[in-house]
Each structure stands twice: as C-alpha cells, then as structure tokens.
C-alpha cells in the first residue's frame, strides 16, 4: 500500500516521501490508513503546501545544456540534408560535447538523468561509429573520459569549497578544453552517405533532447556543484508560557 504515496504530487514527494514511507514501514497499514492516504494525496493536489523553494540558477544549467544539445543536433541534421553543407560535423561535435557538460554534475545521478545518460552515451556512440579514422575515435574517447572525470572532480572541489580561483581554473581546464578539442576533432565525421539515416534517426533524437532540456529547465535539477541545503535554520523554539 506504500505505493499510494505515488499518488501525491511530485513536489510534495520530494519533500515528504522518504519520511512518510519510513512511517508506513513502522506500523501495519489498515484500510483506513489507505483511504486516509488517498484523501491526503487528493488534498495535496488541490491545496499544495510543499512548494518548491526558489531555485538556484545553477539548477537551470543542466537543462540549458541539454536544450542546447537538442538544438545543435537538429541544426546538424538540417545541415546534413544540404549536400553542400559542411557544418553538420561541427554541430554534431558541439552537440556531443554539450551533452557532456551536464554529465559530471547531473546525469550520472539517479532518476530521469538515467534517460539523459543513455541518450548521451548514444550520442557518443554515433559520433564514434561515424568517426572513420579510429585514431580520431580514440582521441574523442580520451577527451570525453577526461571531461567526465575531470569535470566531476572539479564539481566536487567546488562543492567542497576549495578556493575560487583554483575552482574556476579547474572548471575551464576540464570543461572548456575538451569542448574545444572535441569540436576540432569532430570536423569531418559525417559523410553524405549517412545523411538519410541521420535524418531518420537524428531528428527524433534531437527532439528528444529538446524535450528533456525543457523539462529539466522547468523542474530544475540539482547538481553536485550546489552546496547542501541547511536545515533547521528557522525560528528558534521556545518554552510554552505557563
């Protein structure tokens, strides 16, 4: 019956689900409790109490990165259709690298990010498969690995409060450098023979990224660069007057 908790709105569950599930595990649940939960869920939809706190701007970044990915990808597909177009390679590389901007801080975490992670891995696969010289694939792969590992370490350093200058140097070094390398390396990855397949597969793929990006922007998505939210900082309790 604890599945009834899923009837509550997402925002409410973000705040209270864990403790409510803990409570439900501590006592046998009766039919009356189940009805009470359903009523509570209905009330939570009609009169939302657990409103999302004001969202830090950093929570928008993963969504923006994903949205940019989708747009870059669609632009690349549009360019592939043009026989004389040569920008598709650059766009695809840019899209792949943009995907990875969000990976270290967000997509390696659970829930919806699993979808984004799978799509990101798919993007990498496409880029690597279409990279005719394997030496180029190896370079891209190494760049991606350095970005993910370096980016993750940088984000962790930011979260740990390491000096601002060092943080930004790390951030630039681990995120921007692979981006630049990736864009340069990805030049010339797609030939005209793959154009039709790219349109059939690539367009829905790009649209999927756009939708996920919009969803992430609207909902926000905590990253590991955000410090933990302090709790218990409200007004101090005092004794009840006699």
């Amino acid at each position, binding site marked *: 019956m604890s599945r009834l908790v899923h009837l509550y709105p997402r925002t*409410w569950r973000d*705040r*209270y689900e*864990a*403790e*409510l*599930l*803990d*409570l*439900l595990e*501590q*006592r046998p*649940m009766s039919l*009356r*409790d189940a*009805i*009470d*939960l*359903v*009523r*509570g*869920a209905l*009330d*939570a939809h009609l009169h939302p*109490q*657990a*409103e999302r706190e004001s969202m830090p701007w950093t929570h928008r970044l993963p969504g923006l990165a994903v949205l940019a990915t989708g747009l870059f990808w669609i632009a690349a597909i549009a360019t592939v259709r043009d026989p004389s177009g040569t920008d598709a390679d650059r766009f695809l590389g840019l899209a792949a690298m943009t995907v990875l901007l969000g990976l270290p801080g967000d997509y390696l975490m659970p829930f919806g990010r699993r979808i984004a992670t799978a799509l990101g891995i798919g993007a990498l696969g496409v880029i690597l498969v279409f990279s005719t010289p394997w030496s180029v694939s190896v370079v891209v792969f190494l760049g991606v690995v350095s970005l993910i590992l370096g980016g993750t370490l940088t984000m962790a350093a930011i979260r740990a409060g390491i000096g601002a200058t060092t943080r930004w140097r790390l951030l630039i070094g681990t995120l921007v450098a692979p981006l630049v390398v990736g864009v340069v390396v990805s030049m010339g990855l797609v030939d005209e023979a793959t154009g039709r397949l790219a349109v059939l597969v690539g367009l829905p793929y790009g649209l999927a990224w756009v939708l996920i990006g919009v969803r992430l922007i609207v909902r926000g998505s905590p990253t590991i660069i955000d410090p933990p939210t302090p*709790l*218990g900082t*409200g*007004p*101090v*309790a*005092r*004794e*009840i*007057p006699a």
Partner: protein
Amino acid sequence: MTQPFGELGRFAEPSLYILVSLSNGPKHGYAIMTDVEQMTGAPLGPGTLYGALARLERRGLIEALEPEDRRRPYRLTGAGATTLAAQLAHLEGFVRTGLERLGGGIK
C-alpha cells in the same frame, strides 16, 4: 477553532494535536502519531498527519530538523509556541464557560 487554525479546515484539529505533541520536544512523524494516539485515544492517519505537518511547516509554526536516516524530526517554532498557547487559553475559556453553563442547567 480560531485563526490560524480556522483556515486549516479538516486539518485544524490534527494540527492542534501535533503542536501539543511537539510542545515537550522534537519528534518525527511516527513518534507524533503514537503520541497523539496516546493523548486522544484516536489514531491519526498518515495522510492527515502529513497534510497537517505540511500546513504547520508552511505557516512557520513548526520546523524540520536535520533528518536522522529517513526520519525527519520536527520542533515547535517560537511562533508555533505562541499560537499554541493562545489556542489552549482560548479552549480553556471555552471549556470553563461550557462547564459553568452545564452546571447551571443541572441545578
């Protein structure tokens, strides 16, 4: 029930129980539930409990403390203590008046 409890609708009475339960120290959800059941003899449903907790927290009458595993204790805020004291005083007067009138009627 007077303000701010009046606006809580069906959660007004559970909210009062919760504030009373928290008046002698922080408690998590299950502890509040069992405490209220001991005080009133009636169980507080989980949906009602968390509906009331959410309302009290939003109004600043209680606050959440650091979670202990999945349990999150709540405690009364200064505003919550003041509100509870005023509410209990109001009820005390109401009870006294009722008893006096009842006593007069019996005579």
